Each structure stands twice: as structure tokens, then as C-alpha cells.
């Protein structure tokens, strides 16, 4: 089971899988036989991230903040407290910080040292967030990174990058799209994308969801 079976050509996914399948199964067998783990508990962890914990949790916070000024104030003051006040059955991680996009400032979240990400409100981080291109470039060429996502901002807009170097976790509160003044909180949740809460995207426009 040496590491030299790894294929360097496709580092993020793909070619190493059959080898990894064997190695991971073997380790699970060893740990189960030793009594350290319960495979049913492992099933539950996987199920939680496949079905329950995802960007819809953050989307709910954003849509509420767009429609309820008092909630927005609380979210920006203490996002963990505000998120837990909505009564979700899944707890929100401690030290969650919401940062607000405005016409003057666009926020972008990264973890250059590993892949810290607000799992409790966005679910599992996508592969690109954990990749070397994003981690290396977000802080030195954020406009280039935004261009990779098809996002262009006015040149005078300040771009503020938050490098998640401690256990604090950042959630971007994007700007409410124009033309949604009469929309309900529930309708607005459909406009909030995962990337808009990381800062690599903008919320959908009403025209995009109508399509």
C-alpha cells in the first residue's frame, strides 16, 4: 500500500480512486475490528452532509437579513447567535462572522493555509475552494479569480479578502438584487447561491430564476 501508486495527472479527483477505495476500506475494517469506530455512526456522518447540511442554511440567513433589518443587525453583530435564533435543528459553529457587501466593498473568503470554510451554514466546501489555484491566487489576484467565476466589479469597488487563519468562520452577506422589492423571504432564498456567500459569485437576478 505504498503512496507511489498515486497518479499525479489529476490531483483533485479521478485516477487514484480504485487504490483509495481499497486503502480506505482496509482502514475502516481495522478501526472497526479494534472497536474504535461504529460503522453506523460513519453512515450517519455521511448522510448529514449529503442530505441535511448545505448552503440552504446560509441562504435562509441571507434572505432573512434582506427582509428583516433587525435580524440583519443581529447577524452582523453576532452571526452564531443570530443563526441559532432561527431554531435550526443543526447547531451553527461558534465564531461565525457575517461580512456585508455594499456598493463600496465586495468581500471574498479564502483559507490560504488549509481549507477552513463555514461548514455549518454552507455544507462541504467545493473542490475549487480547497484547490491550490484558489488558495494561492485569491489574496494576490482577486480580480483574476473573480473573472474565473465570470464576476466583474466596478474598478473602484474595494475587494476585501478574509483569510480564515483561525477558528473564526466568515459568511458573506451579498447585496439584495435590484427588482426584488416586493419579493418574500422565501422567494428571495432562491436567489442566494453558495458562491455569493463565499464572495466568488453574486446572487441570481430575478430574470435568471424566471428563465
Amino acid at each position, binding site marked *: 500500500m505504498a503512496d507511489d501508486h498515486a497518479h499525479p495527472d489529476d490531483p483533485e479527483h479521478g485516477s487514484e480512486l480504485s487504490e483509495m477505495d481499497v486503502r480506505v476500506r482496509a482502514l475502516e475494517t481495522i478501526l472497526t475490528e479494534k472497536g*474504535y469506530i461504529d460503522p453506523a455512526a460513519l453512515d450517519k456522518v455521511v448522510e448529514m*452532509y*449529503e442530505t441535511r447540511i448545505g448552503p440552504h442554511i446560509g441562504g435562509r440567513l441571507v434572505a432573512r437579513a434582506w427582509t428583516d433589518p433587525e435580524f440583519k443587525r443581529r447577524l452582523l453583530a453576532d452571526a452564531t447567535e443570530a443563526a441559532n435564533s432561527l431554531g435550526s435543528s443543526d447547531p451553527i459553529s461558534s465564531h461565525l462572522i457575517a461580512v456585508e457587501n455594499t456598493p463600496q466593498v465586495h468581500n471574498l473568503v479564502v483559507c*490560504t493555509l488549509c481549507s477552513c470554510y463555514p461548514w455549518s451554514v454552507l455544507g462541504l466546501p467545493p473542490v475549487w475552494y480547497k484547490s491550490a489555484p484558489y488558495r494561492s491566487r485569491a489574496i494576490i489576484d482577486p480580480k483574476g479569480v473573480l473573472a474565473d467565476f465570470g464576476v466583474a466589479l466596478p474598478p473602484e469597488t474595494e475587494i476585501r479578502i478574509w483569510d480564515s487563519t483561525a477558528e473564526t468562520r466568515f459568511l458573506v452577506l451579498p447585496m439584495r438584487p435590484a427588482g426584488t422589492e416586493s419579493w418574500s423571504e422565501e422567494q428571495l432564498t432562491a436567489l442566494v447561491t453558495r458562491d455569493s456567500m463565499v464572495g466568488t459569485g453574486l446572487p441570481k437576478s430575478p430574470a435568471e430564476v424566471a428563465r
Partner: protein
Amino acid sequence: MTNSIHDMGGMHGFGPVEAEPDEPPFHEKWEGRVLAMQRAMGFIGLWTIDAGRASLEALPPLDYLRSSYYRRWFLGLERRLVSHRLIGEEEIAAGRSLRPGIRLNRKLTASDAEHPPLTNFERPAPGPARFKKGDQVRAKNINPATHTRLPRYARGKTGTVEAVRGCHVFPDTAALGAGDDPQWLYTVVFSGRELWGDEADPAVKVSIEAFEPYLLPA
């Protein structure tokens, strides 16, 4: 390992960011099992999250770069299991347990998995904070051979304290298994030009979350 490949902020040459439309939670079944094993073994409490990160940073740079995220986690977990004598190399080679496990205090159940305990890294402050919002600070030039969360690109650079985040477990100490050693944590913001030079885009600002031992008055 401080100055290793994981500290990649500001490097060139990795190419464009490629997002995958409608990306699934896991691309292969084993990835979910690795995440879950990591959770279950972490739950036992034999190592800190910082020790876990340190074990990934200790991977040889070429292994780090050519491994996917979950493969890295798997390699780090194997290392930790062996170094804590929970399993042996010969058992990994055999693909099965060759002797009884050691007694552990806790074991993750399905119910624990469904209601994970909240991890809170904030701790009572041993003393007053040295800095306040608006203070100018300089990040120290440190190069420890052990774990740190002060990235290379910020070392020696001058920035402004934007927020005081409370007193938190200090990763540099916790990674060594030497206790929480609580330290004040600050959001420190740097201009793009301070970090990247006069040619940098004046519209860019970068903040790090900096523990007090990383900072000096500027």
C-alpha cells in the same frame, strides 16, 4: 512544519480556478468514509484540530500537491493513528487488525453524529488584550519548524487591528499537545500594496486572523 507547501497564499503558477457545475457532496464513496472516520477518531479526543492540521502539513510537498483533499486527510489520519499507537504499520499492510485495540474513553455513536457537540475555541483571558481596534501592528517575522497559523505572506508586514475577536486556543501550542495556551485573537487588515508592492491594485485589502504572539506594535 511552517514553511511548507500548504502555505500557498500569493504563489503563482497553479492556473485558473475551475469550478464544477452541480458538484456532488462526494465524488467517490471513499471520500465520505474518510470524512466520517476523521470525525469519529477526532471525537475520541486524543489530538487537537491543530495537531490534525500539522500532520497534513508534514506530508512531503509532492505528496501534498498530488493528493486530493480527502486523500490528504486519509494520509494524515493514518500517520496520526500510527504515531498514537492506535494501529500498527503492519496492520495497514495486512488490511486487518492483528491484535486487540487499546481501551478508549469515547466512541462516536450514530446519535452523536446526528447531534454533534459544538466546539468552542474561546477561552477565559489570562490578561488584558495588548491591542485595540485601530492600532497599527506589525506581524513578526517568525519561522518556527512547528505549526503556526501566521502565513508567510503577512510576516514582517504592517497592518491595522480591525476587530478584537476574544481569547482563543493558540494553535502553535495546541498542535504540540501542550495545552490551550489561550491568546487574544485579532482581525488585522493589510493593504494590497503593503503585501504585494507598489504595483498592486489599490482596491485590494487582505485580512488575517492573528493571535497576539504574532504581533508587535508598529
